[in-house]
């Protein structure tokens, strides 16, 4: 479908017929409409003052037949002259710039030309000359102070904002193509930390102003007034604006759900009388470029022999033999034997048999070595096509878009496909009533894999030895069935076998609304929104006989269900002006209901019929079949209000209150009140500032508010027993194939659990200077979260059940958010802007008595949250050099796993630090090893436009966090039989290399990785050149010829390079899918790829 669309669109058959009409339409629109169609433009018909001076400058005039001289003046909205504004004849390069009084003189061919007047920081404007020869043009501030910002249940002029609200530059954001917003947001907004998933269509991670809760810190996402979860619900190309409410004074209107901040997304709407069609598309390819450094086949043999000798054992390896040196065999498997050579009757291909009965696999050794990471990854194409049509009349506007997005995974056989459609419309009924709808529908099909887990394909790539090839001699998968090769799963096989599994969903997210102007200033709005998602997935477990623990068992599993989240909002909004006093009052109610229902079942025993035509439950063996269903419901009811008051546009005051009742809490503690107050002072509007012309805008802001967090399980208040065949049933009668039903405690509820409350004090200022060329936004905040909801690890002695979240303790986040922007031009043709945003926060657990461990690995949990420290700091033993001699072992404090009776064995092992100096290393000697929280993050953006070219550079710097690199547990130690790192072979302790990274090679050393320690902890700082985009906008005349008003091509590269001390493939690891108290542990994650792509954007 996509292909057809593209081709038809680029080469329309009826092109020649339609061209004049399209051109005419374009011309009509062009005369009316300023280049930035998204913002409101006013042509100010002010009376024309006489120019006081007439310093005229003729910059360029190529037209020999110039007939008309136009004089004019360019002013800002306050009537002040704008010096240096560009006045250009549209569609040509003829133009001039205004003088210090904002005046200009320009010769134009005739009165039919359109002047394009632009000035940095202001909205460009087009003016038809007609027969007027003396023109005054008033430019409105662009994208800045006049910009309308979407805030909770309404809008505000940016100039009037008193809270901390960040606006995402959607255009810049879209230069990083991705299926999910979270990936695109990284480094774009001060105070927002985010990271995408590298699984196709996977969920990313967005956190606003750090984490303050032990539970979920996920921000509330609102799309066109519909509360939803996650940012991957929307097609990024449909987004008109993204505003992020960061502090409590702006987010408190969302009460109990605002503590994580609020992301308000508004999608594109049509503009009356501006009909247009836009196509955006790109195609690119991605590739993983940084892999772990693993040993090859010969090196592994060497390492294994060294390890056995290190353990005092004569080397004897199933594959590499028991000679003086390791010998790489010709065959690693024939039947059940390994380490075989050509000529051995066992490897006769005639013996090969892939059937269940008489299974006999023959696998050659990969003598050079399989690079499993390269085998499982692929060069992955991504393409995106979006077609938008919008427009309308004075009675109604519409915007419709079709989108197609397809992304191949970085791992073979994985992909993400999304067809989406958006239809937004609004109609007027008389003068007072407007109604409209928004609708987003998508059909998604996703094939990802596990990630960042020891069973994931990527992680199995370091568990598979290099000697194992991907395929056996007959082209079936080879694997760890070969003796001595461990129990890793061939990751290519895992991915291949899952290729026909389906994970589909259909999502409808939309709203219906009506607005009525009851009387002057009073607006009633009713909005009903729904986010409905129907998911379906099926998976087949295929035989995996090549696996060490493999078999011919087959299971088919099918699951389906729906989620439905309805939001019904009614508001009254009253705006009133009394002279210098501006009021805006808002009152509203909201009802939210969430429902989720799932069913599923599975059967086994499909072998030998494993192909898709047998994938129905009925074909499986009914013995041992399973089925289930589940239902979850949640509800929220709220009333809220807001007052905005402004005196002379200088003194701003804002107060909100919300009262929420949630089904997640017991009746006695069900309701919470969330107030906020904030104030602003626009100093730049004061008379005394009139003298300081270099300052265009200066506003001080201060706010305080309380927001809540209710992101806990809906059943938190309830205690109940379950009746679960696996956990509470027992075969009391000794029947062997049936059980007697019983009950066991499933959950202990807490009737007293209530909201977490976060109070934030926010101080900030917005400054614009030098004709708005320099801008700065600065916020400093202190965020205190009390009554933290946490599911603390309970003593095992209490039994096994789901523990409730309880309110304990409080935390503090102090931080600053800062944005600096500088825009200028080197000449009339070279415009550039540079901006940097800066995010820093410091997290601390304040209240006494908070102390718990999280983040399980193969060792005990490695993260500790303790009063006085940040949340989830890495905790463990400190390695303190090696035992270099027997004497050192004897003299050292006792430590786990070191046997002083056999000191020779301990030589070359790590010495653990006796931190408390009490003469033995025990659990009390553990120390904090690092923090998963970056000290700061900063994004740099640089745009430059020269003639028709534009260039965007974007870089991101993350500094000061640590990563617990748990992949080393597998690659640098004996943990499991598998492949090993080069470091283990070349930089382990020997008497000659006492300054090594790793302890002595010793096949029986199960100790060196048996406790969490400092070797696993590494710096997670990195600097990444994320985006370079070069665009070319086709000259108007040329694009007009094909009927387009705008035509732009671009090429770009992502993730050009990364500078980092981190030894793993990618330090961009914030989201590890283990919650916010499980941050920063690398279990082996598919890294961010290098990507190159080209795109096209055309508007008709």
């Amino acid at each position, binding site marked *: 479908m996509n292909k057809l669309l593209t081709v038809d669109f680029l080469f329309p058959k009826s092109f020649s017929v339609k061209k004049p009409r399209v051109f005419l339409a374009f011309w009509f629109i062009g005369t009316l409409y300023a280049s930035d169609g998204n913002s409101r433009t006013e042509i100010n018909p002010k009376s024309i003052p006489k120019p006081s001076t007439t310093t005229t400058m003729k910059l360029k005039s190529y037209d020999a037949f110039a007939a008309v001289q136009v004089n004019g003046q360019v002013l800002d909205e306050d009537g002040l002259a704008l010096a240096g504004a560009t006045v250009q004849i549209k569609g040509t390069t003829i133009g001039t710039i205004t003088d210090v009084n904002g005046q200009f003189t320009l010769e134009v061919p005739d009165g039919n030309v359109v002047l394009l007047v632009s000035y940095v920081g202001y909205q460009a404007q087009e003016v038809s000359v007609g027969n007027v020869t003396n023109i005054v043009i008033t430019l409105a501030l662009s994208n800045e102070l006049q910009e309308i910002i979407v805030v909770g249940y309404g809008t505000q002029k940016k100039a009037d904002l008193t809270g901390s609200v960040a606006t995402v530059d959607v255009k810049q954001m879209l230069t990083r193509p991705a299926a999910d917003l979270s990936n695109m947001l990284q480094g774009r907004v001060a105070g927002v930390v985010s990271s995408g998933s590298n699984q196709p269509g996977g969920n990313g991670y967005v956190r606003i102003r750090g984490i303050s809760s032990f539970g979920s810190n996920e921000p509330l996402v609102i799309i066109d007034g519909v509360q939803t979860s996650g940012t991957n619900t929307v097609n990024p190309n449909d987004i008109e604006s993204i505003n992020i409410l960061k502090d409590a004074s702006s987010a408190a209107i969302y009460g109990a759900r605002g503590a994580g901040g609020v992301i308000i997304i508004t999608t594109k709407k049509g503009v009356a009388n501006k009909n247009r069609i836009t196509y955006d598309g790109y195609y690119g390819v991605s590739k993983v470029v940084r892999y772990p450094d693993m040993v090859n086949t010969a090196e592994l043999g060497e390492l294994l022999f060294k390890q056995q000798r290190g353990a005092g054992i004569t080397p004897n390896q199933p594959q590499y033999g028991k000679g003086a040196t390791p010998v790489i065999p010709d065959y690693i498997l024939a039947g059940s034997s390994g380490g075989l050579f050509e000529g051995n009757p066992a490897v006769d291909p005639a013996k090969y048999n892939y059937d269940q009965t008489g299974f006999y696999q023959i696998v050659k050794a990969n003598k050079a070595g399989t690079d499993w990471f390269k085998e499982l990854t692929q060069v992955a194409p991504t393409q995106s096509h979006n077609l938008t049509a919008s427009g309308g009349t004075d009675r109604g506007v519409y915007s419709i878009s079709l989108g197609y997005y397809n992304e191949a995974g970085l791992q073979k056989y994985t992909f993400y496909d999304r067809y989406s459609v958006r239809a937004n419309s609004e109609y007027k009924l008389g003068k007072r009533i407007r109604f409209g709808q928004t609708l987003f529908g998508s059909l998604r099909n996703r094939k990802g894999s596990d990630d960042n887990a020891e069973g994931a394909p990527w992680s199995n790539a370091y568990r598979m030895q290099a000697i194992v090839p991907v395929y056996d001699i007959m082209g079936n998968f080879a694997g760890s069935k070969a003796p001595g090769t461990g129990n890793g799963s061939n990751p290519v096989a895992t991915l291949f076998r899952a290729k026909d599994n389906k994970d589909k969903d259909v999502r409808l997210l939309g709203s219906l609304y009506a607005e009525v102007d009851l009387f002057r200033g009073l607006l009633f709005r009713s909005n009903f929104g729904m986010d409905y998602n129907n998911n379906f997935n099926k998976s087949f477990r295929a035989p995996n006989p090549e696996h060490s623990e493999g078999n011919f068992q087959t299971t088919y599993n099918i699951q389906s269900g729906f989620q439905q989240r309805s939001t019904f909002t*009614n508001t009254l909004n009253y705006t009133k002006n009394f002279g210098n006093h501006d009021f805006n009052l808002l009152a509203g109610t909201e009802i939210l209901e969430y429902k989720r229902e799932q069913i599923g079942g599975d059967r086994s025993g499909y072998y030998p019929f494993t192909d898709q035509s047998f994938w129905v439950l009925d074909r499986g063996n009914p013995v*041992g079949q399973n089925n289930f269903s*589940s239902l979850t419901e949640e509800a929220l009811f709220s009333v809220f209000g807001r007052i905005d008051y402004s005196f002379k546009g200088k003194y701003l005051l804002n107060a909100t209150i919300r009262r929420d009742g949630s089904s997640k809490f017991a009746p006695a503690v069900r309701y919470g009140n969330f107030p906020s107050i904030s104030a602003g002072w626009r100093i730049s509007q004061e008379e005394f500032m009139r003298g300081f012309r270099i300052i265009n805008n200066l506003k001080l802001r201060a706010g305080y508010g309380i927001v809540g967090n209710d992101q806990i399980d809906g059943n938190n208040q309830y205690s109940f027993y379950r009746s679960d065949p696996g956990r509470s049933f027992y075969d009391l009668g000794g029947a062997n194939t049936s059980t007697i039903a*019983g009950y066991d405690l499933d959950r202990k509820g807490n009737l007293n659990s209530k909201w977490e409350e976060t109070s934030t004090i926010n101080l900030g200022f917005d400054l614009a200077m030098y004709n708005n060329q320099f801008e700065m936004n600065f916020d400093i905040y202190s965020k205190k979260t009390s009554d933290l909801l946490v599911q603390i690890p309970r003593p095992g*002695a209490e039994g096994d059940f789901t523990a409730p979240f309880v309110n304990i303790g409080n935390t503090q986040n102090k931080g600053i958010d800062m944005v600096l922007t500088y825009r200028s031009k080197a000449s009339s043709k070279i415009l550039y802007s540079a901006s940097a945003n800066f995010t820093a926060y410091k997290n601390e657990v304040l209240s006494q008595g908070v102390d718990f461990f999280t983040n399980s690995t193969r060792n*005990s949990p490695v993260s500790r949250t303790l009063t006085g420290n940040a949340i989830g700091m890495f905790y463990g033993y400190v390695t303190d050099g090696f035992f270099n001699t027997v004497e050192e072992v004897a003299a050292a404090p006792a430590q*786990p796993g070191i046997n002083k009776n056999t000191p020779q064995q301990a030589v070359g092992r790590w010495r653990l630090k006796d931190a408390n100096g009490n003469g033995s290393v025990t659990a009390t000697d553990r120390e904090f090893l690092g923090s998963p929280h970056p000290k700061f993050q900063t994004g740099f953006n640089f745009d430059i436009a020269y003639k028709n070219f534009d260039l965007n550079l974007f870089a991101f710097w993350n500094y000061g966090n640590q990563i617990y690199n748990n992949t080393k547990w597998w690659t640098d130690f004996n943990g499991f039989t598998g492949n090993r790192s080069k470091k283990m072979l070349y930089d382990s302790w020997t008497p000659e290399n006492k300054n090594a990274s790793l302890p002595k090679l010793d096949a029986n050393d199960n100790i060196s990785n048996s406790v969490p320690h400092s070797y696993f902890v590494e710096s997670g700082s990195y600097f990444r050149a994320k985006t370079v985009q070069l665009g070319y906008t086709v000259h108007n005349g040329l694009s007009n010829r094909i009927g387009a008003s705008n035509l732009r091509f671009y090429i770009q590269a992502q993730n050009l390079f990364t500078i980092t001390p981190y030894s793993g493939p990618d330090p961009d690891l914030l989201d590890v899918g283990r919650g916010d108290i499980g941050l920063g542990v690398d279990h082996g994650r598919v890294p961010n790829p290098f990507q190159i792509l080209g795109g096209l954007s055309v508007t008709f």
Partner: protein
Amino acid sequence: MKNFKIYISLLVISLIPVACVQDDFLDRKPVGVFSEEALKTKSGINGILVGAYAGLNGSMYGNGSSAGADVNTFSNWVFGSLTSDDAQKGADVGGSRSNIERYEIAADNTKLDDRWRFCYDGVARCNDVIRITPEVKGLTELEIKNLIGQARTLRGLYYFHATVIFGRLPYVDETTTNFLIPNDRVLWSEMETDLKYGYDNLPETFPELGRVNKWSAGVMLAKIYVHQKKYAQAKALLDVIIASGKTTRGVKYALLAQYHDNFKIATQGSSTDSESVLDAQYSVNDNGRGFNGGLGENLNLPHGGLPTQPGGCCGYHQPSQDFVNAFQTNADGLPYLDSHNAQEVKNDQGIESSAAYSPHTGPLDPRLDWTVGRRGIPYLDWGPHPGKSWIRDQAYAGPFSPKKNVYYKANEGVLTEGTSRQLSANNTRIIRFSDVILLAAEAEAELGNFEKAREYVNQIRRRAANPAGFVKNPDGSAAANYIIKEYTTTWTDKAFSLKAVRFERRLELGMEGHRFFDLVRWGIAKEVLNTYLAYERTKRSNLNGASFKDHNILFPVPQRQIDATKKSDGTATLTQNPGY
């Protein structure tokens, strides 16, 4: 005026949601679950008791994978067998069980935490029954005693299961509300009280054979006496049990005619199963996703994956050479009590399955071939054990396979779980009657009644000597040179009597997870195990450098538990065992 009406009606409309929202709009109760109130009925409380029994077949923690759940069960192969001279971890190099087998156990070892939580989950389930039963209306006094008696017996069992591993424990009962409890004592008296209650109050028989009855409570109590060296009390109780004890089905306790019937799904729990004192009842294909199958032993099947092999996974829990040697018998048909390693049972170490091999021909105790899988001997109905091709890494952990936990080929697909043939319905026999007889023999020997001890031991050997119960070749001939006889010489000496009783215990209960705890109980663990290591490491690379130290008689308290039980002043509630 007209407009005014419109405004009013719109204001009213906007308030409708407020009016509509009743308090119950925010009541969203979970579905498909049971409140405690709802279970305060006769059938409800019986169901909670079934839940307390459900712990016997293991639980799933952590990642929910059956492969990691082997210690969350009543199988003691990890803590009681691979730690002893009976067996090794097996399989291949590495993993958290390797640290355990080498006595290099860090408190961070996840197996410890899994076992701790498993035992206490069992205790918690029992506590629920004991706490709720008195609140159930309409129960007779007898019914109450019955319910509480079963729960208390099970509680004693769960505590015992943790005690042998961790020693001192925090005591949690049905009244506990604050769970920050120090582990300041071994809970012998608490266990005794519970088991005595069960012994005094439980009926002898039940319709369901899986329940604990008067006699199984009594046996547990006697076992705890023996562990405390209260031999006189143990003897008194064991005498009654041996004279009058019955299975739940009312069958008088007796040894089964054939040794191997203990490990065969077909005979376990049958109407003639007189040897079962307490089994962990396993079941499969019962809608329980395999969670009710033999989780504890699911790694302990020959390595491979072929349909011609049982289970097809993992190859753990491999018998040691030392253990196999112990089954050699001398000219009198008796074991070499002092010198079982003087000569070795032949094995196929280093020999490909495709190469020729003939098994050991010397005299052997027939129980060997029901306990150990070795090359050339029929492996149940799977045909002769082929040797190396069923072993994961022979150079690492030797040539032998476990056998008692293995299911028959005939059971495949019916008594093995559909989604995982590693899980079968072959019960773990937590206590069987031969254990009772050997405990009695031990108590008698300790008390000086050597001849009584000999009588008990001979009773065990007599059953083993039943030729009908030998492993046989397809042609009906014995699979090896089985020679086993009773002790005919009078026992007069305590040292010898104890040695013989203990040796018999090793042979009879081998690979069943008792050995390590027996050695510790006898106070000879360090001596026996270091001797064993010195011998075995000449055969196997995995034990090089390992040694048993005094503190290894107990395992460390899981670090995770110590960390999870910090008091508000930051100090740990739980104390680590000495030496860790």
